[in-house]
C-alpha cells in the first residue's frame, strides 16, 4: 500500500535534482561568460532607469487579503466535498440532504459577500 507512494518520493527527488542541476550549471556557465560580474548598475532593481526610491515590500491593497480569506473558506469546503463525492453511492439520500444543507449555508455566505462587495475589483 505505502510502497505505491515510493515512486512519488523518487519523482520529487528527481524533479528537484533536475531543477537544482540546471540552475547550478546555468549559473556557473553564465558566470564564466560574464564580462562585468558585479556591476552595481546591473544589479540594481529594474525600475524605469531611476534609482529605486523606496523598498518594494510596502503596504498593499487589503482586497488581496480578503481574497485569501475567502479562498480558505472555499478550499475547506472543497476538502469536505471530496470524501462525500467518493462515497456518493454509499450514503444515500441522507448524505445528499446533508450536503445540500452544508452547501446552502455556504451559498448564503457567498451571497452575503457578493452583496457586500467583497468580490468587487475596481
Amino acid at each position, binding site marked *: 500500500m505505502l510502497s*505505491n*507512494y*515510493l*515512486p*512519488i518520493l*523518487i*519523482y*520529487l527527488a*528527481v*524533479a528537484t535534482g*533536475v*531543477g537544482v542541476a*540546471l*540552475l547550478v*550549471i*546555468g*549559473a556557473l*556557465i*553564465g*558566470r564564466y*561568460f*560574464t564580462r562585468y*560580474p558585479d556591476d*552595481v548598475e*546591473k*544589479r*540594481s*532593481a*529594474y*525600475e524605469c532607469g531611476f534609482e*529605486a526610491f523606496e*523598498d*518594494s*515590500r510596502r503596504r*498593499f491593497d487589503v*482586497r*488581496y487579503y480578503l*481574497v*485569501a480569506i475567502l*479562498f480558505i473558506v*472555499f*478550499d475547506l469546503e*472543497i476538502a469536505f*466535498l*471530496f470524501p462525500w*463525492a*467518493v462515497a*456518493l*453511492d454509499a*450514503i*444515500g439520500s441522507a448524505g*445528499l440532504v446533508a*450536503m*445540500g444543507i452544508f*452547501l446552502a449555508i455556504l*451559498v448564503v455566505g*457567498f451571497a452575503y459577500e457578493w452583496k457586500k462587495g467583497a*468580490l*468587487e*475589483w475596481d
Partner: protein
Amino acid sequence: MQPIFDLLALPVVQTTIWILVVTVSVILAVAFSVLFERKIIGWMQLRKGPNRVGSIFGFWPGVFQAFADVLKLLIKEVVVPAQANKVMFALAPIIALVPALATWAVVPLSPDLVIANIDAGLLYVLALTSTGIYGVIIAGWAANSKYAMLGAMRSAAQMVAYEIAMGFALVGVVMASGSLNLGAIVQQQAGGMLTWNIIWLFPLALVYIISGVAETNRLPFDVAEGESEIVAGFHVEYSGIAFALFFLAEYANMLLISALTAVFFFGGWLSPFDGYLPADNWLARPGFPWLGIKISAFMFFYFWLRATYPRYRYDQIMRLGWKVLIPITLVWIAVEGVMAHFGVGPWRAAG
C-alpha cells in the same frame, strides 16, 4: 556485466528509469511546444514563424529553434539583484519547476503505464499544483522589485480564485467516477466518445479548461506577466537559466493541464471509437497515442486562444472567477447530485 543486469531488474531502479524517461520526454515536449506555439501564432498572423535554426536537408526550417534558445539562455549570466533575498531568489524557480514535473507521477499515460498508481492521485495533483503558486509568490517577493511584487500579488489572487473553481469542477468528476485514482477515472469513461465525462459534465469541463488557462497564467489571463503594464511581472529580475526554469515550468504546467483535461473529461488514453468498432480494430485500441493526440489538441487550443483574444483586465478576471465560474460549478454539483441520486444519466446506481 551480470550485477548490472541484476541491478536493472530491481523495481526501484526500473521506476527510476521510467521517471527519467517521463521527465526527459516532458522537457523535450516543452521544447517543441515552444516551437509549435511560435509557428502556429506566426501562421495565424500570416508570418512564417521561426525558420532559421536547423533545417534538416531543407525540410522543417526552424525545428531546432528551442534548442538554440536554451543554449543562449545557458550562457547568459544569472543576475542576482543586490537588494534581493538571495536564498529565496534561487529557491523560487526550483519551487515553480518541481510540481510541474512531479505531478506527472500520477498521470495515467497508457493502460499499464502510470508511475505511481495511488488511490489519492487527484489529491496529489491538487496539492502539487497549489505548491507551484509558491514559486511565483516567492519569486516576486525575493526579487524586491516593484514590478515583480505587483505581478506576484496579482498572480496569487488570480490563481487562488481559479483554484476554487477548478476544485469544484473536480468534485463533479469524482462524483461521476467514485474514485480519486486517475486510472479509475479514465476506466469509468470507457465505451466510446459519448460516455466521456465531457458529455454529462459539460459545464464543469468548460470551467476546468478556463481555470486551467488562468492557473497557468496564459493569455488571455496573463496579468501576472502583463508585459505592457508591469514589464514581465514576477520574473522581471530573472535572467539566464533561472528565467528558463520559469519558462520550462510554465510550459510543463500547460502540458500537464492538457493531460489532466484529457484524463478527467476526454477519456485519457481511451480511443474515441471504442465501442463503435470491433474491439480488435486498431482504431479502437486504448493507448498512449490517443492521450498524445488529446494533449496536442489542447496545446493547440491554448495557442489559438493566445492568438485570438486580447488580455483581460484584472477586475474582469476576478469577476469571471468569482462571479461566473464558481456559481456555475456550485449549481452543476447540486444538479449532478440530484441526478445521481435518482439514477438519471450514466452515474453509478445511487444506494
